[in-house]
């Protein structure tokens, strides 16, 4: 077991209660001049209010409605997303994987919780859970059924374990009923989970 009893671990010298632990660390850093509180607030604001799955949904909707864009996206997502200003922190090297009638893609990170943040925002609790990280590679169909998704035997399930700095985004199959809709309308069908592979696109509520 790495470094269990060595001198590199001091975290338990701070209060165990996490809210107090973070407060204590923030105080130390501020007193030392190692942190700008306004910068911390701005980072939180970006992830809380601006960066979220609606960004990925727009990319998917555009790919559904524009075959040339879709071809470019699948061939070289990294360049397409960089040019769109969407290749930021934790999405520097994105690969888009397309669902077809033969293959259903599912994304996990078994070693930590890597996730395409600039396209989907902060990861949901289940994505970071031990259960998902443990089971997505060994029993993906069971996991999918726990999300209410049943993949027919005729479709293979291909699980992508994000072990490196490549981030995967699933391009889901477009529902037939949505064909022909304009991009802003289409984007409403694209759920966050459909871009991770644990869900399918859905008709927007109220449509």
């Amino acid at each position, binding site marked *: 077991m790495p470094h269990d009893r060595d001198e590199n671990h001091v975290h338990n010298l701070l209060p165990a209660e996490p809210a107090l632990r973070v407060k204590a660390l923030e105080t130390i850093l501020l007193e*030392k001049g190692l942190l700008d509180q306004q910068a911390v607030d701005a980072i939180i604001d970006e992830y809380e209010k601006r960066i979220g799955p609606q960004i990925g949904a727009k990319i998917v909707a555009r790919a559904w409605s524009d075959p040339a864009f879709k071809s470019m996206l699948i061939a070289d997502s990294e360049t397409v997303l960089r040019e769109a200003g969407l290749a930021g922190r934790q999405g520097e090297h994105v690969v888009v994987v397309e669902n077809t009638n033969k293959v259903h893609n599912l994304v996990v990170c078994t070693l930590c919780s890597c996730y395409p943040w600039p396209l989907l925002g902060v990861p949901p609790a289940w994505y970071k859970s031990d259960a998902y990280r443990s089971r997505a590679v060994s029993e993906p169909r069971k996991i999918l059924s726990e999300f209410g998704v049943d993949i027919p035997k005729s479709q293979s399930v291909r699980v992508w374990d994000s072990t490196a700095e*490549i981030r995967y985004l699933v391009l889901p199959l477009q529902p037939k009923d949505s064909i022909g809709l304009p991009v802003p309308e289409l984007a409403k069908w694209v759920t966050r989970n459909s871009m991770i592979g644990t869900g399918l696109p859905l008709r927007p509520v109220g449509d």
Partner: protein
Amino acid sequence: MKPPHDMGGNPSHPIIPDKPDDKKFEEAWHRRVLGITIAVGAMGAWSIDASRYARESLPRSDYTKFSYYEKWLSGLINLLFQKGFINKNEIQSGSGDSIAPLEWRNRVLSLKNVGAVLSAGAPTRRDGPKPIFSIGQKVCAKLPLDTLSIKNGHTRLPHYISGKAGTIIKSHGVHVLPNTNAHFLGEHPENLYAVEFKASVLWEQNPSSSDTVVVDCWESYLEAA
């Protein structure tokens, strides 16, 4: 014994999917941990690889007990201590002894640079040699232990593919090697590949299954099968 963060293939609980009205951050302190971790990381004193290693080398009892943001927080505290940004007395008292050296304070992320830091990220693609393996080639994953740069060090090779044969399906180009970079031993960029393994090979079940698992592997994680 495999380390606690290497979870792939472990038996575990059913998934509890989230609900549409769930909050982005379950607790107020979660967002503080996120903001502080990113802000401090932007000083450039360590890489994502060092951050990951700091989290996964927490004592097993802490790793298994801590929630996601508790791991981030404790990993960050240990890194700040190991790199000399904060000392033990400060940690024990919960208060800064002295102002940090100007050299460090000059690197503190300011409000006006937040947007640029988030949109730049930290790309890991580098120039490097041509790949040894080609698409369609059969390869075998090594033991994680045989890829470490230091004892009990960092690797991104999960145990569940070790010793198993798969096929290269994609070449990702040359990327920084976490196994050295996590320990401040240099980037040593290597070719990175997407390797596809049959579920039937990995889990010794469903011989008829066409399901697969794709794992990104650096060249030194692999040998020709």
